[in-house]
């Protein structure tokens, strides 16, 4: 596939969370191939990473845990150009199927980590006029099959909206909402497999969409949908 052209843009230093699988993994692969410096983190330990994982700095840390988040902030360099927070978890089930511990964990990974990391990343991103990307979901408008997950993604949208105003001119904040993506998260979340899995967005294209949407100007919020990635998919097929 010719989807990745070598770019002439400057080498940037990126932080990517949730990098050990799914969209985060794809983003790290794209960035590494483009020659950017990447610091990646995910819940898996380094030894449990997928075999094709690119040769970048990786730290096995759990973003649900406050001490792990603090450790990540400590080991990062003093300056960063970009941070993409992909870490996310959730369950495909109605409220009655949730447990207090799962609610706590879902909110901790999807929202509390974003607040904690955004706070700690500000002094690193502001000297470079950097950019902070929060990975949301189209579920942020509400989803009866997963109310807690949807609530955390709606909350991320609200966080980005207000924070983009607070930090305007200092750090660009964006929330990027992918549609359902074929990452295996759906199955892991307990959603029964059906025809819908076949039309889910390809993770590599979504990763590319997120990396590029973060570089654009305009609104604080962007949706990564088929309409956006289809032209590239068709071109890639032909090439």
């Amino acid at each position, binding site marked *: 596939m010719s989807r990745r052209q070598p770019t002439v843009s400057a080498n940037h230093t990126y932080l990517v969370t949730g990098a050990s699988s799914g969209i985060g993994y794809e983003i790290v692969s794209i960035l590494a191939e483009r020659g950017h410096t990447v610091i990646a983190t995910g819940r898996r330990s380094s030894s449990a990473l997928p075999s094709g994982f690119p040769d970048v700095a990786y730290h096995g840390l759990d973003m649900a845990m*406050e001490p792990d988040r603090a450790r990540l902030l400590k080991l990062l360099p003093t300056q960063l150009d970009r941070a993409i927070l992909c870490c996310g978890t959730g369950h495909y089930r*109605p*409220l*009655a199927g*949730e447990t*207090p511990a799962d*609610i*706590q964990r879902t*909110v901790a990974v999807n*929202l*509390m980590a974003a*607040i*904690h990391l*955004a*706070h*700690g990343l*500000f*002094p690193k991103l502001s000297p470079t006029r950097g950019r902070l990307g929060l990975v949301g979901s189209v579920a*942020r*408008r*509400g*989803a*009866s099959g*997963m*109310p*807690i997950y*949807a*609530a*955390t*993604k*709606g*909350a*991320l*949208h*609200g*966080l980005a*909206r*207000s*924070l*983009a*105003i*607070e*930090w*305007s001119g200092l750090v660009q904040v964006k929330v990027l909402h992918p549609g359902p993506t074929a990452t295996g998260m759906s199955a892991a979340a307990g959603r029964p497999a059906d025809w819908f899995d076949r039309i889910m967005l390809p993770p590599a294209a979504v990763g590319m969409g997120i990396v590029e949407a973060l570089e654009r100007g305009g*609104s604080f919020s962007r949706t990564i949908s088929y309409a956006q990635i289809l032209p590239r998919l068709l071109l890639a097929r032909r090439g």
Partner: protein
Amino acid sequence: MKVLVVGGASGLGKALVEQAMRRGDSVWVIDADREGLDRLDRAAERVLCDISEEAAIDGALEVLRHEPPFDLVVLSAGISATGRFENMDPGIMIRVVAVNLVGTTTALLKCDLIARGGRLVFVSSLSHFVSYPGASAYAASKDGIVVFAQSIRRAQHAVSVQVVTPGPMETPHAERYSPPNGKKGSRADPKEIAAVILRKTSGGVIVPGVTAKLAAFAGRVAPSFVGRMMRHLIYARL
């Protein structure tokens, strides 16, 4: 009618408790503020509970589960944290999410105490429509509440789920978190918002009051203009 107000010891929750009692409802109140509970009318049943602690919710349930179900449950407990995001203690912002989002949803998960045909009302904020620079974690938690309410509405057939988005009110909450030289006159009376909640038995998202409705409309049609206004009116004064 039987009413349960979570966060009923002060502000909007307290106004709700008072009005519901005045119209003859039997009222239960849950709150983490012991002194606030003590100041309420003795006829209200009062339960001390911090909804951000699971064990405390279990304790409150021990009292409540023997009651017949409620016709109206209002989840109005919430805290805020205002200031420039980068200058605030992240632990305090995370605590806002722990109370407003984790606490509210966990309390609801554990307390399935609403009668068939009853109403469940969440209290969000006008920030859902206009943003809230200077309280970004709070704004996040309140957006989460709106989306949560919208999500469970479709699965709730026997109970109507509503969410109210009040603007600034003349309450201890606003006193605590607003810019020091904020205009008090522009804040709404919590009694009026409480009256809207008791009266409006239909509609999903309730924007109470004319000022809030206008602001919500403006926030929808011209979000970036309203964002700049919010920055100027609130954030620049913090």
